[in-house]
């Protein structure tokens, strides 16, 4: 596992403290907590959304609903990149009309994933507002999209990849910057190439 030569830019303790800060920021910025819902983007955004929900419960004592969004069907390159990723279901089991939706993902890069996610969310109803929370913002936006809550700003080159590993999915909490062609993630897990 994680036999990386480079040390992670974020380790488990750092990720945890960062998420605590983001949970506080979400609570600070939004007054009507009853109207707030979290939606994680598969796969690691879901894990992060669940962790944020736990932290918010610990701080405020409220249960925030967490939805799961699979954006595969909304990608702008869905029919041009060839083989599809395994499609998994979108599970948003609460009405989102009039709600404030906080969209959660691991890495913000070109902004195309978020563009697709916005389309996906809007197919479920008309939220009063959508905010974006990401663990890492690595720059290189191709669309006019910005995050409301950023865990860490990470300067990278376009060729590099940012790999977020989370215990629930990958067995360990870490954020690595990976040079082209190298991966630190455990066997069996493919890095999301050119994470968008």
């Amino acid at each position, binding site marked *: 596992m994680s036999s990386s030569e480079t040390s992670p830019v974020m380790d488990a303790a750092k990720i945890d403290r960062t998420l605590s800060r983001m949970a506080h920021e979400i609570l600070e910025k939004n007054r009507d907590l009853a109207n707030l819902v979290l939606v994680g983007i598969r796969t690691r955004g879901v894990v992060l959304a669940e962790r944020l929900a736990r932290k918010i419960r610990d701080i405020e004592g409220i249960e925030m609903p967490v939805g799961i969004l*699979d954006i*595969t*069907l*909304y990608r702008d390159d*869905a*029919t041009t990149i*060839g*083989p*599809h*990723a*395994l*499609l*998994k*279901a*979108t*599970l948003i089991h609460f009405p989102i009309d009039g709600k404030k939706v906080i969209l959660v993902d691991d890495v913000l890069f070109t902004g195309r994933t978020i563009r697709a996610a916005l*389309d996906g969310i809007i*197919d*479920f*109803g008309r939220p009063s507002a959508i905010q974006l929370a990401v663990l890492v913002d690595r720059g290189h936006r191709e669309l006019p999209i910005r995050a409301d809550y950023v865990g860490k700003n990470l300067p990278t080159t376009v060729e590099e990849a940012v790999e977020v590993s989370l215990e629930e999915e990958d067995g360990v909490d870490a954020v690595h910057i990976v040079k082209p062609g190298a991966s630190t993630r455990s066997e*069996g*897990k*493919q890095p999301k190439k050119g994470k968008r």
Partner: protein
Amino acid sequence: MTPEADFRLRHRHLLGIEPLDADEIRLILDTAESFLEISRRPIKKVPTLRGRTIVNLFMEPSTRTRSSFEIAEKRLSADSLSFSPSSSSVSKGETLLDTARNLEAMAPDMIIIRHASAGAPHLLARICRSNIVNAGDGAHEHPTQALLDAFTMRQKKGKIGGLRVAIVGDITNSRVVRSNLFLLKKLGATVVIGGPPTLLPVGLDRLGVEVKPRIEQALEGCDVVMMLRIQRERMSHGAFPSLREYFNLYGLTEERVRLAKKDVILMHPGPMNRGVEIASEVADGTYSVILDQVTNGVAVRMAVLYLLSGGAAGELAA
């Protein structure tokens, strides 16, 4: 979990179940699981196949399959157009090959074909650049029907391997049976075939199925009963004396259903002939999943269109 790159079909076309392996069948069924959710949304549409053109070439009458494909295409945002035999130039004497070449000239991305002759989709696959989906060819195969049947079995029983499935009716003329046979054997189910000997093809036992001429024997202890439509038009061929006699000897009645397992599910690919192969109260019974089959059909066809649009493994490995 295996790497994402493995989640694709090894074929550009869906011509039948026979060429697929068990993993590909499971991939289609797993993918369909996710599409089921889209049909329950307030806005039943995703933009995945936006800008793709799909031609539905139905050279034989069909309501269920054709509308199911059309709904699947619309929910994936594809542009689709449909031909039926009466409205197309086939009625003016055009050959299938010419029809196909003319369609091809308009550059569709996929062609869904239903044809009275076995092998028609294969002919199209040889001359067209589009992805071809077989929506029923003669008495050969009807792959999406078998896939939606399997999907429904898995949904209701939690598995396919180890199930005992009885298929009763006109076996000789049924493409649904052939596709189901291939699929169920590949996924490890036991298949029991029942029906009048005049409607059972020779050599059935070589396909690894149990053949029971009497419906009572076929139903005994089965988890799933699949009844097939008696094609009234074949009455003149003298396969059996009368519809009434067929119902008396092979019709599925409540009394006969009791021979199967307690939690049996009843399937029928439609259209049903109430009072011929199936008693009306059985068709509407609590064990009937006939309408679930129709609902699932849309999700399964969306999965097929989606997976084929992603290209075949072989093409991209190069």
